[in-house]
């Protein structure tokens, strides 16, 4: 007979219980969705309904084209204003999933006579999809443990900052919908694997296709599922369910993914997809071997197996070498290398190394983004080892792979977040299950075992801190006690508690009593409350800034908006001809195209390294060298970001070394990084700055007339904390056209060639009344001789 820690109502019919729980579940999910959406609206409330950052501006612009011109026009869209003068084939170089999604929503809403602006759909797409993510995480976790763990996982992922950072209202990026697709594909895969159903396999494939169309990170799924299948094969868990699920997913998914023009034939040619293909082949071979084994005697089968394994291995290796050699399989891409060999990008691809999202992750970021989930996460992973069903293997692999990637690249924290939520939910709900479950295990019958346990339990002060229990006593308890919980932890609780309750024999006090249960449960609830508080704080303070608009606070605490970017972009839009080409560093390309609607030389789609290096060279060389480059590229305006006045640290002078490095990669003879440092090797902009630095176009444009602002006083650069030289740089080939309120954006007009054919420097000197230095009159005659 089992004893209960507290009384349960006994007059309920099972049907009532089931109905009530399912109703509560639906209500809980609805609330979670609401919370997920609401916590992402800080950006809209604090600022306004605006597209954020850089990439979203391109997505937004593309979506507008899609909605205005239709899908076919979008598909064939050639954008002559980007990468001027090269242009960009947008339709073939974009993942269209995001734009198509907003387009479909737009059409549906308009068919329902709801005239919603496309911008608002774009802004609110990410919050909307986050509620779907919560739901799919619930479904996924339900397959692993039960509904209560599922609800916890859904709540976690709904508000966890690691996911919010990429999906606040206005961050209209591919990741906004990708995490939903990731989780839903994984859920379908697990479902297909569990049931061996080709239907769920096909659904997984269809959502995989959607994912391929939406985000370059689809390669994560492409490798996770084969890895899982391979692990199952190695564990000797081949089954026809695995065969059906994998084959249906791979065949349909690969064929579907090849329909995306940007992906094309990559699934059969690049190394990133080879694992999926290889596992598919392996599964066919194993399936065939199973078939043969069921038909021939085991001895014959052995011989056959050996011969075919050796033969096939040999042929396969040869084929791969041959194909790589012939160039039919694409070489290993740089991005792929930079994930595995962490020093690779630093050495060979400055453009990858320059992106701050590609930096490794320090632990404070993990904690900031995941809070208490991060230390529940390993616990949840270890709990997966208890049952170790096929789907638990999946979570374990996902956990280790995603932690590695998140450690290597900050931005891949996004792929780690779902599995952290799932594993933490499993751990957390196990804790709650154990302490809420009213069933008390009976005291062990075996006297020897219980006395042994007593000795162990006596020095345990906190019941929830397991101390190492000797294996023997653990086993003894396991044999004797009718513990309701399973696994080592359950045994441990049972051992600890049974020892004490056996001694005291009390009902509502002691380790099994309500008091200890309440301590643990209150602690757990406290952690949850603190988590919610942390998430809200992080979301409202760190992740909701649109970065197009900056916020600072006035002395009285009220908010002060710094709107220099839009000010400058609108100035460009209204004061320059529509064909005026604007040169800036590539970070601002998408924003200029989106907000100012002017052609740009380079933008955030960093497909052409040489073109970027050209801009880098122009920025880092002297005026005389840069001018022909500017003229050859028809540049009318040059835009630089300068934060020195108000202390905006993400400005161009701080990015300048990357421009130098990238330019040096292409022109090592002309641009050399050490020339931009002082003799002592410091990066300085004050009087000590190196001549190359002081003559560079970027330096001149940033500090042009800056010292005048201080009216003869010491001019201070607030970002670098250095004094700017009193006699600032002069410009001969450019003219200051516009400087925004806080000097963040400075725009310069490129002068046309002098009408009299002089070079602009001497023309300028002439205009200022300076006397031209006489050249030796004899030299000309000498040359003629």
């Amino acid at each position: 007979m089992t004893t209960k820690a507290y009384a349960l109502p006994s007059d309920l019919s099972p049907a009532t219980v089931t109905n009530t729980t399912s109703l509560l579940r639906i209500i809980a999910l609805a609330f979670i969705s609401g919370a997920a959406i609401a916590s992402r609206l800080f950006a809209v409330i604090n600022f306004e309904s605006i597209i954020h950052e850089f990439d979203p501006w391109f997505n937004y612009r593309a979506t507008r084209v899609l909605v205005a011109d239709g899908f076919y026009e979008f598909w064939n869209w050639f954008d002559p204003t980007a990468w001027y003068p090269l242009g960009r084939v947008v339709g073939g170089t974009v993942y269209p999933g995001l734009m198509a999604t907003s387009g479909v929503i737009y059409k549906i809403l308009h068919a329902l006579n709801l005239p919603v602006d496309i911008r608002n759909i774009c802004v609110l797409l990410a919050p909307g999809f986050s509620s779907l993510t919560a739901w799919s995480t619930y479904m996924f976790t339900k397959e692993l443990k039960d509904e209560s763990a599922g609800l916890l996982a859904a709540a976690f992922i709904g508000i966890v900052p690691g996911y919010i950072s990429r999906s606040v209202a206005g961050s209209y990026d591919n990741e906004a919908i990708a995490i939903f697709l990731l989780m839903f594909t994984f859920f379908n895969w697990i479902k297909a694997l569990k049931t061996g159903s080709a239907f769920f396999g096909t659904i997984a494939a269809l959502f995989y296709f959607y994912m391929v169309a939406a985000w370059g990170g689809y390669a994560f799924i492409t490798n996770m599922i084969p890895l899982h299948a391979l692990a199952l094969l190695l564990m000797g868990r081949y089954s026809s369910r695995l065969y059906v699920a994998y084959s249906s997913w791979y065949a349909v998914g690969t064929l579907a993914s090849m329909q995306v023009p940007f992906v094309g034939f990559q699934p059969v040619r690049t190394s990133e997809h080879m694992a999926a293909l290889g596992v598919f082949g392996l599964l066919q071979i194993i399936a065939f071997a199973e078939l043969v084994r069921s038909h021939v005697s085991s001895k014959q089968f052995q011989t056959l197996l050996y011969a075919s394994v050796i033969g096939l291995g040999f042929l396969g290796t040869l084929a791969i070498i041959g194909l790589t050699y012939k160039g039919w399989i694409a070489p290993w891409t740089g991005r792929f290398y930079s994930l595995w060999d962490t020093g690779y990008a630093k050495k060979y691809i400055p453009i990858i190394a320059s992106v701050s999202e590609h930096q490794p992750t320090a632990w404070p970021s993990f904690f900031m983004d995941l809070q208490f989930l991060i230390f529940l996460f390993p616990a949840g992973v270890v709990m997966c080892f208890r049952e170790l069903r096929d789907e638990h293997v999946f979570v374990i692999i996902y956990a280790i792979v995603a932690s590695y990637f998140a450690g290597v690249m900050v931005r891949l924290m996004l792929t780690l977040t779902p599995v952290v939520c799932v594993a933490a939910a499993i751990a957390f709900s196990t804790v709650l299950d154990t302490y809420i479950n009213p069933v008390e295990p009976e005291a062990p019958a075996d006297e020897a075992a219980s006395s042994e346990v007593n000795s162990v339990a006596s020095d345990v002060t906190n019941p929830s801190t397991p101390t190492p229990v000797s294996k023997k006593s653990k086993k003894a308890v396991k044999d004797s006690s009718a513990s309701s919980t399973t696994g080592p932890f359950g045994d441990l609780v049972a051992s600890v508690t049974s020892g004490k309750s056996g001694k005291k024999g009390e009902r509502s006090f002691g380790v099994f009593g309500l008091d200890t249960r309440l301590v643990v449960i209150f602690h757990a609830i406290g952690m949850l409350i603190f988590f919610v508080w942390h998430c809200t704080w992080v979301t409202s303070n760190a992740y909701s800034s649109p970065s197009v608009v900056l916020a600072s606070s006035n002395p009285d605490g009220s908010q002060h908006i710094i709107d220099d970017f839009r000010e400058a972009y609108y100035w460009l839009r209204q004061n320059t001809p529509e064909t005026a080409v604007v040169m800036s560093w590539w970070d601002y390309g998408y924003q200029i195209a989106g907000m100012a609607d002017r052609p740009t030389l380079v933008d955030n789609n960093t497909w052409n390294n040489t073109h970027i290096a050209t801009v880098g060279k122009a920025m880092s060389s002297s005026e005389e060298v840069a001018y022909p480059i500017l003229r050859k590229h028809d540049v009318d305006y040059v835009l630089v970001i300068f934060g020195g006045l108000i202390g905006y640290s993400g400005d161009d002078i701080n990015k300048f070394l990357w421009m130098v490095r990238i330019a040096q990669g292409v022109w090592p003879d002309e641009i050399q990084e050490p020339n931009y440092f002082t003799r002592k090797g410091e990066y300085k902009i004050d009087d000590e700055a190196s001549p190359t630095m002081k003559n560079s176009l970027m330096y001149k444009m940033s500090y042009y007339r800056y010292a005048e602002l201080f009216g003869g006083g010491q001019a201070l650069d607030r970002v670098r904390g250095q004094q700017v030289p009193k006699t600032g740089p002069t410009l001969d080939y450019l003219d200051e056209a516009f400087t925004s309120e806080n000097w963040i954006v400075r725009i310069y007009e490129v002068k046309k060639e002098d009408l009299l054919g002089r070079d602009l420097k001497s023309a300028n000197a002439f205009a200022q009344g300076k006397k031209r230095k006489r050249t030796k009159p004899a030299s000309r005659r000498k040359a003629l001789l």
Partner: protein
Amino acid sequence: MAVLQIAVAAFTNEQLLTLTQNQGKTKVIPVNDQNFQKILSGERDYHLVLLLSSAVPQINCVLCNEFHPDFNIVANSWFQDHPNGLSEEELNDEDSPKKNVYFLHSEFAESRQLFQLLQLNNIPKVYHFPPSSSIKANDYIKEFDEYQFYQGVHRELLASYLKSVTGLQFNIYIPPDYSKIAINAVFAFTFALLIRRYRKEAYNIATSRPLWSSIILVGVLLLISGYMFVQIRGVPYVREHANGRVDYFVPGQQNQLGVETQILSFVYVYYFQFSD
């Protein structure tokens, strides 16, 4: 004195070639206090590339140790391409006459005079001495240019630098490291043998759930407490101040020290036990 130094005229091209050929595995001529005047002074119709470095532990020159193997690779690759120097046609090419290149290495411990003469206060240095017609002693001190060390693959940077100063094509051949291959092969073979011998135990280990779960646990714990950050950035283990104070933590969300990974993994394990 001056007469005496003129008397020690430089090597001829052929002499240096034989000297290089007589070197052992690395085709770099060692320079020391006894022979540097003889090698560097006087008239030359070839290029000299001199590496000045030190492997002495007291000096602890990290870049030297990093750079020296690459220097040897470049030298050997050049010699592999031109075991007998440049051919007659190349030497007498009308459009762009080419000169031979010889590689020298000077170790600080053996050539203090030379280092003093060149007034070096930091190493490593790579000097390129172009062909010269000057016969005055010590003129080489004025007629060289210096290789700038950049971040990157040293052998490629050095080769491109040499190409720019000599106008010659430098290919790079990296010799396969046979000892490494052999060690790996031995390890793999022993491992295979052991597995074959203790098949049952190996199977038990490979299928041991506690083992796997602890491997995964340790892996995940290290990775989420910034192990990769420490690896990639090469941050120090702890930060020591001049006054003997030691920092175990650094401020900032995107920064940490090596020891933080360990502290954090233990804290996480503690919490993990607590929550379990």
